[in-house]
């Protein structure tokens, strides 16, 4: 839904296919569209990237120069009793001569020095190539991760209602991680192809016929690699499936272990697991057979080339058309000839997985579901009276299933309203709409006479304090968790807020008091403590209007009494809407609104409604069966 969609259009909930977040992406090996888009994030780091590429080209050439020193300078020039055959040597012979003349060293020693120099330069440039490359790639991925997370952070509740958190999460983590291999893979490819091309050119100038013959291996290797990749892809898919079956079976068995044991299903379940286990073993064996033959073939093809070089190159050397050093040079390059194909083959799988990852990332980035934000926002007075008016409100999460039907309700400034009703009556939905988690229409909600739809959602949320049932504890200290609604607040104010809602006592008892770090999701606090902390947080933020979903979880009496007191503090002098589950809360409210199937059934004080003998009285007496 785009930002300028009028609110009324949102009644018909757009049919979105949330299933794409669960579906496995088939993908292709190379998708220019995706790559192009991905390079948007690399572009800001292009300078680092360029340096890295220049360095890898230098390193590649130096890697070629090393065997040249061995074969052309030492063997041809010094040992083999040099025939005068002019062959390309990157000027190494003359360099050696100059070095020897300059230092007065023996030619062989001079060649050794030159060799060491080249190796050193190679090591430095290769190292910095990798360092610059990862700097660029990691920088790009950091930006991508930031953009993706920012995007997800601002998706509306309707999105998170429908997709599994795990599926979204792995896009930020694993999928971005996967792209590291892709982007740095390009660097690897450049590093492999540059020496390959330099070597080929060199070899052609030395001995075109022999080089041509050796290159015949390329198509063979290429075909073998393509076939291998194609076949193994299917096998790998089968393996993945059997592995996920194994894991699923194991996980379920562990979670349901008492049920398994009490029903004496151990043997039966083990037999079923073993079946999958065997299936997995067979698939693995299949893959291994393919992998080992392919691997052995690739490892040996270069050595086979040696035979060809000795026969053909040796023949040429005897003819005197090439030097002996050149033949030896060829034997040193022979492994390099098939390397690019091997590497491309290796990168192919990476490429495939990465494309799927990129697609998943972009899928999330392109998910434009959002709530309506006004283009010209209305302004609210600095001090709210705290009046809420709900007018003919209709709302449904799904298309044909209205949760709220034509609901009208006027909450006076400073009033404390308890909302009650059976499960599914739409109580919690009201909270979610007040928090602007969803767009709603037809119907409207006014805050001090201003339509919520005319206000930015952030403004609404700042003015209305919301306490959800599942209070979220942020990783950080107790202090951070209380001050989070109002970052400018002082420690004294925080303690005061905590004192008011009776949270101070338990906080003081924590190992580091207000500075005690809380584990994500607050596992180191009890239910009741979390509730009190939520109260402290909202009190510290001091919003003009309070909307609260009372927790239903069972809490011991003592804490329950603390919570009731805290609630009293929290709501006094503040417009409060409370989805109430406790009798005391209801009795303390100014008025009680009874919801049933999305409609307002009754409205009045506790006593009035009891006297009425309607839905409220029935709800009230539901359990009474004596």
């Amino acid at each position, binding site marked *: 839904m785009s930002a300028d969609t009028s609110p009324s259009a949102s009644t018909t909930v757009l049919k979105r296919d949330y299933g794409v977040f669960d579906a496995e992406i088939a993908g292709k090996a190379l998708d220019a569209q995706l790559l192009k888009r991905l390079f948007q994030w690399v572009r800001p780091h292009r300078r680092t990237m360029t340096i890295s590429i220049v360095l890898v080209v230098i390193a590649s050439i130096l890697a070629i120069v090393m065997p040249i020193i061995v074969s052309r300078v030492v063997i041809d020039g010094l040992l083999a009793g040099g025939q005068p055959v002019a062959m390309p040597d990157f000027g190494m012979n003359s360099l050696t001569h100059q070095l020897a003349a300059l230092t007065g060293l023996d030619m062989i020693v001079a060649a050794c020095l030159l060799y060491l120099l080249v190796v050193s330069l190679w090591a430095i440039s290769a190292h910095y190539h990798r360092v610059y490359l990862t700097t660029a790639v990691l920088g790009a991925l*950091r930006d991508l991760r930031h953009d993706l997370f*920012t995007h997800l952070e601002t998706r509306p509740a309707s999105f998170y209602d429908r997709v599994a958190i795990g599926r979204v999460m792995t896009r930020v983590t694993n999928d971005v991680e996967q792209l590291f291999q892709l982007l740095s893979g390009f660097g690897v490819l450049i590093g492999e192809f540059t020496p390959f091309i330099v070597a080929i050119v060199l070899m052609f100038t030395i001995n075109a016929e022999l080089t041509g013959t050796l290159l015949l291996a390329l198509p063979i290797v290429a075909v073998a690699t393509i076939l291998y990749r194609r076949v193994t892809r299917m096998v790998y898919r089968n393996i993945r499936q059997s592995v996920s079956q194994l894991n699923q079976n194991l996980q379920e068995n562990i979670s349901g*272990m008492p*049920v398994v044991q009490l029903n004496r299903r151990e043997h039966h379940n083990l037999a079923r697991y073993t079946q999958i286990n065997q299936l997995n073993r067979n698939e693995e064996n299949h893959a291994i057979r393919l992998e080992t033959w392919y691997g052995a073939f690739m490892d040996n093809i270069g050595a086979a080339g040696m035979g060809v070089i000795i026969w053909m190159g040796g023949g040429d050397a*005897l003819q005197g058309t090439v030097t002996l050093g050149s033949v030896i040079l060829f034997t040193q390059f022979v492994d390099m000839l098939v390397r690019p194909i091997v590497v491309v083959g290796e990168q192919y799988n990476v490429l495939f997985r990465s494309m799927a990852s990129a697609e998943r990332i972009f899928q999330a980035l392109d998910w434009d579901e959002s709530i309506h934000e006004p283009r010209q926002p209305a302004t609210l007075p600095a001090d709210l009276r705290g009046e809420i008016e709900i007018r003919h409100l209709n709302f449904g999460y799904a298309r044909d299933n209205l949760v709220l039907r034509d609901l009208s309700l006027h909450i006076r400034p400073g009033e404390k309203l308890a909302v009650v009703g059976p499960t599914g009556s739409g109580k919690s939905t009201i909270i979610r709409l007040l928090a602007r988690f969803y767009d709603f229409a037809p119907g409207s909600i006014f805050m001090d006479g201003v339509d919520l739809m005319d206000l930015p959602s952030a403004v609404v949320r700042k003015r209305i304090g919301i306490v959800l049932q599942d209070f979220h504890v942020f990783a950080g200290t107790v202090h951070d968790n209380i001050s989070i609604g109002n970052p400018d607040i002082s420690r004294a104010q925080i303690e005061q807020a905590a004192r008011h809602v009776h949270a101070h006592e338990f906080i003081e008892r924590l190992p580091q008091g207000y500075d005690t770090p809380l584990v994500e999701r607050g596992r180191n606090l009890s239910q009741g403590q979390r509730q009190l902390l939520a109260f402290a947080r909202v009190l510290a933020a001091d919003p003009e209007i309070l909307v609260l979903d009372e927790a239903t979880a069972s809490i011991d009496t003592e804490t329950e009494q603390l919570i009731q007191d805290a609630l009293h503090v929290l709501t006094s002098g503040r417009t409060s809407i409370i989805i109430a589950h406790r009798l005391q809360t209801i009795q303390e409210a100014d008025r009680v609104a009874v919801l049933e199937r999305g409609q307002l059934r009754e409205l009045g004080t506790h006593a009035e409604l009891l006297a009425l003998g309607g839905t409220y009285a029935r709800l009230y007496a539901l359990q009474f069966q004596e």
Partner: protein
Amino acid sequence: MDRRLSEVAGEGRPETTDLSPRSPLRRLWTYHTRYRLPFWGSVTLLLSARSLDALIPLFLRDSIDAIHAAQPRISAGDLMASDAQSMLLLPALGILACVIVRLVALANARRIIRRIAVYVAYDLRKRVYSHLQLQGPGFFARNPTGDLMARAINDIALVREFIGSGLRTMLVNITIAAVGVIAMISLAPVLTAVLLLPLLPIGIVGWFAARRVFERSMRVQQGFSDLSEQVQGNLYGIRTVQALVQEQNEIRRFDAVSDEYNTRFQALVRLNSFISAIMPWMAAFSTVIILGYGGSLVRDGTLSLGTFTAFFSYVGMVLWPVREIGQMVTLWQRGASGTQRLFQILDSMPEVVDSPKAEAPVQIRGELSLRGLSYRYPGIGHDALSGVDLTVQTGEIIAIMGRVGAGKTTLLNCFVRLLDPPVGTLWIDGVDIRDYPLEQLRRQIVLVPQDPFLFAELLRHNLSYDDPARSDEEIWEAVEDADLLTTVKSFEEELDTLVGERGVTLSGGQKQRSTLALGLIRNSPVLILDDCFSAVDTQTEEQILERLFAARRGRTTLLVTNRVSTARHADRIVVIDEGEISQLGSHEALMASEGWYAELDRIQKLKLQAGLHEANTTEVSSLGTQT
């Protein structure tokens, strides 16, 4: 990494970072014994393949020397070049033959050892699975599902990697190096001795580098899991984040974690890159020694040009393992830590051991007798149950009550030996419960647990989980007894409805009633219901119990409940408080005496009058603190 270690230690699972690869890996010796034959077969094949490696440079040497010797004669016109070429035929074909034999040997050697790795993984998986099935609730409380899964998946994978890759690489490398050194010594012993000198520092650097790499990659892994945790925590609390308008702060926090991860990753890459630059750089000194010293020997005529060339290949062979030492150490370390973590699980002894005696009756009648039953959870300072005495006659219906944590569930778990009561404290039909075979006991004493659990399977399979061969008739009857008929009929596929994540999600009450149906279907002599109506409304509970009590006439039934309205139908009521029986008697008797039960009844009636209450544990626990 530090944080993680302290967290792990805090959870009482000491994880030694013993990097010496020997000790834990010894545990895998059983598998060596099991796959001895293929293993040594594979080693032999590897050895022969590597011996062929040493032959190739020899062929190269012969051809170079032949060419070198022939060249002056050809230029002098003594020899035709085409005739001379025939000398090269043997070395060329020799190399080809070597290559083909080596290909076959290598492929098979690798295949065999990797297959062994797969077989060991298979065996280990099966072993872990069977082992887990023997464990009791204490074990699963100590080892959360996620942790067990991680061990069963990742650690077995590490062991497999160790055998299929780490062990193999080591064998290969040792062979390569040995063959290379032997070949060189036989060709030129002095040169060999000199050029092996740089290998020592390379090996030392490799060894230390490997440790640093290991540390840094642990830090990267930790950084990644911090990142995952950050995103996950944030997304689970997204509504709170948005309600508090904390999006920008959260993005900042995320960026900080993300940056930290990047920094660690960069540090690892930098180190790895440095190693892959410094190792070949150091190795280049060996090359320089051949060039300089070897070259001068050639010039002096004491070394042939062919041998000089062959030495480059041999040095490559010797350097190969030295360069790979880092990777090898990592593989071994990972294998060792995987093995260690795996055997931590496999070494834990089952809490409940089946040691049946012959005199245990096959058919249980249902007389239960508790004689001073005490139970204390390991590591807890006080008894969960202490000195409980109670005799339940065959056919009695007993309600068990008490506030949260009083010991009700502990007691019930003893009857099915999910927990093991001390010897001589719990007797079934006059025989100690520990003398019954587990299988026999659990077939006849049925416990319906408090928390319902359904498998992601068809409803039918869930309801007949104890015996997949049950007839439809039996299943439908149980469905009706558990008041699940309307629910099941409402499903399009009825009993063939898939439940769970990928199927229909059942409500809490529906799950409870399904679990109840699984308990009822078994028609057992003893039925134990552990507060399995908490998510079911009172009216339905009454209906179910009415049928149940009628059907179970003459058979023993125990049920935990929090509702007096339920308990009153029982023959006797047992109130447990802090692990001891505080009240025992019929409803009328307990109502007549001042005490917890009468007080509970009074409060529940009051609450009922006040309406709107849920008969949950709240008031029961509140009562507990008052008395």
